[in-house]
């Protein structure tokens, strides 16, 4: 995965920045920059909790890091938590790829699933659900509405509501939208509640589970 030294994850209570031990402050900063670039979203205005896997960073360093996050990314640190798990040796940073790990995913593949086409906009309060396979929407998914699919979700419009792909557990499911500005994304049981960037980016994006077990969003170029 991108880098295993820091990871940005979205949990039920919001964003967490997980920092692994045995890192110098400059390594941490570089890794954060890489991780945030990889998210491909503005995190402006969001708040983050720093999870330190061991107390390797000094208090002054954490403070410095907090103000840097605030200044550079407009990210507010809402707390710092130090895990007291045994200190493990450093993990080498792996090259950046978006390969989806085949691990636990034993469900049907994309080719064997049916799909349903919905030829209209899904409006606030409406739900479109297709557990058997993928959903393709010729319209928008508006704020306050919900789309759920066993497989992929493809929105040929703006996704502003919430989308839940891979609802039967197929973790290779993806969510694609011409304009991805959702309130909530879920793939399998991974949830991403980054209510950041409700602004249109002007290009299609794809959301999927990356190797760090976090939903990543990137520019959609081709399948």
């Amino acid at each position, binding site marked *: 995965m991108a880098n295993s030294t820091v990871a940005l994850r979205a949990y039920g209570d919001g964003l967490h920045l997980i920092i692994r031990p045995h890192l110098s402050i400059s390594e941490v900063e570089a890794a954060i920059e890489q991780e945030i670039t990889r998210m491909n979203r503005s995190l*402006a205005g969001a708040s983050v909790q720093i999870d330190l896997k061991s107390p390797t960073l000094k208090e002054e360093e954490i403070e410095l890091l907090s103000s840097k996050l605030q200044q550079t990314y407009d990210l507010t640190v809402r707390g710092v938590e130090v895990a007291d798990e045994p200190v493990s040796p450093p993990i080498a940073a792996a090259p950046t790829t978006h390969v989806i790990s085949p691990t636990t995913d034993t469900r049907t593949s994309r080719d064997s699933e049916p799909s349903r086409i919905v030829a209209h*906009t899904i*409006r*606030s*309060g*409406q739900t479109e659900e297709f557990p058997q396979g993928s959903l393709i929407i010729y*319209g*928008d998914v*508006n*704020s*306050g509405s919900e789309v759920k699919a066993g497989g992929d979700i493809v929105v040929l419009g*703006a996704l*502003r509501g919430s989308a839940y792909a891979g609802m039967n557990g197929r973790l290779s499911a993806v969510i694609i939208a011409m304009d991805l500005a959702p309130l909530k994304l879920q793939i399998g049981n991974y949830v991403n509640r980054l209510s950041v960037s409700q*602004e249109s980016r002007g290009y299609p994006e794809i959301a999927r589970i990356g190797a760090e077990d976090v939903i990543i969003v990137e520019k959609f170029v081709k399948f």
Partner: protein
Amino acid sequence: MGKVIVVTSGKGGVGKTTSTANLGTALALLGKTVAVVDADVGLRNLDIVMGLESRIVYTSMDVIEKQCELSKALVRDRRVDGLMLLAASQKNNKDDIQPEQMKAICDKLRTTHDFVLVDSPAGIERGFSNASAGADEAIVVTTPDVSAIRDADRIIGLLQNARIEPINLVLNRFSPQLVGNGSMMDQADVLDILNIELIGVVPEDSGVITSTNRGIPLVYEDGSPGAQAYMRIARRLTGQRIPIHNFEQKGILNNILNWFTRKR
């Protein structure tokens, strides 16, 4: 045979009653016969906004309970020909009326009037079902803020399910200044989300409040931007093709600034 148009919004306080009163009056000023119906049972105020409060004897409830004929319950507006109000009962609540009963009233009114405008209460419950039961078409009123727009979106979905069509949008309380400095959504943003036909933009106009308090709909006194906006919408309702007025022409510099501030 006249048209029945429900004026609705989802969110409260966005200008349904103001729009019903002004569009009803404006249509009458254009020579149409109009019945405005208050469907906000228990919280009526169309009568106040139209300045007809003191003349109400019967309400739609009395008609439903067969206490009086529909024609007797209609209050004639003496300031303009062809404008009538059917008031709502203030002492009942929304569940005391069935959708079919409202539909029956609307169907009767359409035989004698060119336009029947029904002022819907806020919400998506019974009051809304009653107000929309007899409608052929809808006017959805929204203000340019996200919560009103989300509620409008919800209502549009319900109207579409009920096969009410067309659904036209009135964007109310629009402020070019606020759009200019980037703190209000512009017309295009709103339409991008709601994706229905825009029938008019009504600017924020302090005249609305004084006109409400005096019981004289704004359109009686031309000249104010709000009155002109409602007159244009009324003309569009009668089928005239009038371009949507652009309140946002603030010069190139402003547009550029706007563009930058919106990026954030």
